[in-house]
């Protein structure tokens, strides 16, 4: 319970960065809030507004968000036999199936199935509530500030991506993949239409993931 709430509040505050990034990309406050209510998966939301901000096409933004969201499918596959949900409860469970709810649920495994379920529902609902409140605050804040560059918002966005990336780089192999992806993105930037370099970086993930190690 305490784990769930501390995760929910901590992660929820990232919503400020999303709300601000979304408004800086040109979305309205309402659209930014709808993103968090409906899409509700942080990295995908950041990716969609990130591609739009970099001048990319709609398809590139949607594809980047969808690709980043595919890990939620794998989480759902792990959570389904644990939660055993049907109907409306399944729809709600699916919407709050994200990194944090799955992570807390799995971390409760030594304490039994009931604790895992509790961890999933409380973390998922908690993150949902805080994420949406802080998205609104971030969006309103960014709107009030005006010119993104004047307040450093244009640097806050890549810094937020770096902050999301950082905890994932647990091994040297993963760090190599990250650096290779950055180099790849820089190299293809002048060669492709705006926004496309982001999505084509998936090639790097395929190359590094192809062989077992």
């Amino acid at each position, binding site marked *: 319970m305490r784990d769930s709430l501390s995760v929910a509040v*901590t992660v929820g505050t990232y919503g*400020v*960065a999303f709300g601000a990034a979304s408004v800086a990309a040109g979305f309205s406050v309402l*659209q930014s809030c*709808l993103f968090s209510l*409906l*899409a*509700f998966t942080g*990295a*995908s939301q*950041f990716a*969609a507004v*990130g591609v*739009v901000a*970099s001048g990319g096409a*709609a398809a590139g*933004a*949607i594809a*980047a*968000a969808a690709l*980043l*969201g595919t*890990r*939620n*499918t*794998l989480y*759902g596959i*792990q959570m389904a036999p644990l939660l055993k949900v049907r109907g409306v409860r*399944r729809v709600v*469970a*699916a919407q709050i*199936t994200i990194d944090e709810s799955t992570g807390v649920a799995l971390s409760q495994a030594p304490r039994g199935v009931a604790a895992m379920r509790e961890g999933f529902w409380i973390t998922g609902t908690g993150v949902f509530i805080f994420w949406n409140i802080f998205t609104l605050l971030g969006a309103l804040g960014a709107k009030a500030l005006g010119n993104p*560059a*004047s307040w*450093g918002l*244009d*640097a*806050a966005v*890549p810094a937020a*991506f770096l902050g999301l*990336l950082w905890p*994932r780089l647990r091994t040297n192999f*993963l760090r190599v*993949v*990250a650096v290779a*992806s*950055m180099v790849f*993105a820089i190299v293809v*930037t002048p060669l492709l239409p*705006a926004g496309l*370099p*982001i*999505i084509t970086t*998936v090639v*790097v*993930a*395929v190359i590094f*993931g*192809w062989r*077992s190690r």
Partner: protein
Amino acid sequence: MSATTMWIVLGATSALCFVIKLLGYLIPERWLGDARLQRINALIPISLLSALVVAEGVVVKTHVVIDHRLAGLGVALVALFARAPFPVVVVAAAATSALVYHLH
């Protein structure tokens, strides 16, 4: 990007993200049991987030541009090495970038 296109991005992203989540509850586990698929899937967030750092940090349209944003990113990197929490990383990057922007 036009106002309509932005609504399309919002609508399609939201719908796809939800369907992708729901799929996990509907498809049999063995469909995604392939080890190669799982390895690639685990690397996709790392590749895309890395590309997004580049696209937002050092790119303007289709050109690599070094400007005030890179100063902010550099400070973010230092903050992350120092194990600073996420909000500190973002605010430090923004403050540095804004400072450099106004000094120019």
